[in-house]
């Protein structure tokens, strides 16, 4: 018997538990842990490129551009088959984190460049050490300028988590597809998936706006 109705709420309710489970266990985990990696590693890359001596900063710049200029899915597949001892979820988290760190590094660079020269000169006039200059003056001011752009990358990372299907990790969209395949009903599950993304993304963007305002002085 084929259900020919356009919309059937029953499918929404029966698909939702699995989708929500996958949303929390995969989509959120990859986004949150991946963002944490990207935010920290991105800053490290930006600092190394700026301050490290030539061979090191050159190598880091090359790697950064290499990762930026190749598709995320290719990186996922490559690491999935290269690191067979890792769980696919682990591969996903690391690849997402590293991939986005290369974009965030550029955001940090712009943020660091936006700190006025007078701030550097004041740290010199006060004999502050390079470490203290970065930690107490430059990074706090640079990061403040980068919050909107970093936030946008977190949201786009979140929206790209369905690529995890390439390495057989079942995220929320993967769960929706599995349900749809079992029941020959795709309309409800994919609309629900889209709505769930929207429900998570939109408040996050509002949160980032608020954070930006709070950091302003």
């Amino acid at each position: 018997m084929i259900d020919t109705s356009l919309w059937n709420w029953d499918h929404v309710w029966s698909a939702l538990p699995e989708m929500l489970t996958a949303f929390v266990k995969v989509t959120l985990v990859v986004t949150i842990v991946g963002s944490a990696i990207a935010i920290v590693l991105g800053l490290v890359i930006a600092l190394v490129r700026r301050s490290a001596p030539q061979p090191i900063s050159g190598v880091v710049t090359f790697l950064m551009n290499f990762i930026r200029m190749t598709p995320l899915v290719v990186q996922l597949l490559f690491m999935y088959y290269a690191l067979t001892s890792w769980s696919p979820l682990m591969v996903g988290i690391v690849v997402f984190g590293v991939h986005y760190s290369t974009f965030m590094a550029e955001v940090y660079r712009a943020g660091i460049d936006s700190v006025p020269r007078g701030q550097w000169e004041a740290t010199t006039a006060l004999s502050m050490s390079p470490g203290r200059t970065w930690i107490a003056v430059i990074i706090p001011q640079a990061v403040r300028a980068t919050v909107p752009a970093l936030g946008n990358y977190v949201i786009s990372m979140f929206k790209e988590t369905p690529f995890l299907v390439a390495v057989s990790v079942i995220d929320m969209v993967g769960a929706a597809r599995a349900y749809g395949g079992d029941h020959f009903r795709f309309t409800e599950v994919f609309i629900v998936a889209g709505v769930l993304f929207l429900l998570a993304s939109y408040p996050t963007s509002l949160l980032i706006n608020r954070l930006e305002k709070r950091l302003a002085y």
Partner: protein
Amino acid sequence: MPTDSFTHTGAIELAEGETPAIRFNHIVKRYGDHTVLDGLDFTVRRGDRVTLIGPSGSGKTTILRLVMTLEESQDGYILIDDKPLTHIEKDGKRVALKDKHRSQMRKRIGMVFQQFNLFPNMTVLENIMEAPVHVLGISKADAKKRAHELLEQVGLPDKADAHPTSLSGGQQQRVAIARALAMDPEILLLDEVTSALDPEVVGEVLGILRKIAETTDVTMLIVTHEMQFARDVSNRVLMFDGGRIVEEGAPADIFDNPQEQRTRDFLSAVA
């Protein structure tokens, strides 16, 4: 450019055994093809208040920036208390000194900037305490006490917890003065400290600097367009033009009885 025609070398007679606070030894500073300072010599005694005057582009600010090591000269030597600041002469060659040495030397020198350059991510108190605590290693409690004293001194005792952006330009500059003094510098560089201020607050900032000049023996090197302030505070005035000292003397001599035409022209232009 021939140097023979050049009579005012900025040299002063030093007492026997006296070490000058600052000595410029044939300093050359170029930006690209443009030579700002062409073999500048001059000496500043300890406790001197020297004001540098002259048209813009004459190299006055560059001199302060060289002393603060914000710029690097291409030739010559700067001595602070007879110790080399950034370079020494070794086997007839000019050798750059290590960063460690430079930062050691910098601790003796403080600077107040035209644009204040307070740290906007810190409160007023944190701005003042930062370097004493993290550079000089003074305890937080002592640094805090001293910061409050300095805020009292610059007339802002109730602004300790304010953020710099909430302050007026004049207030920010007073905090910047307190921040520089918190390091107990032997030499204080004042780089057009009132140029970015509204006219009505210039007086309060200059008043504080006058008081500092009266109550301390800090050596001051001042670049300013406030001629009355230069006259009140300094004991020596150097007139610059084209990176050279055109004329120098006591404020009364320079302002009331200038010998050089260029000095007269400059003074009548700024009056």
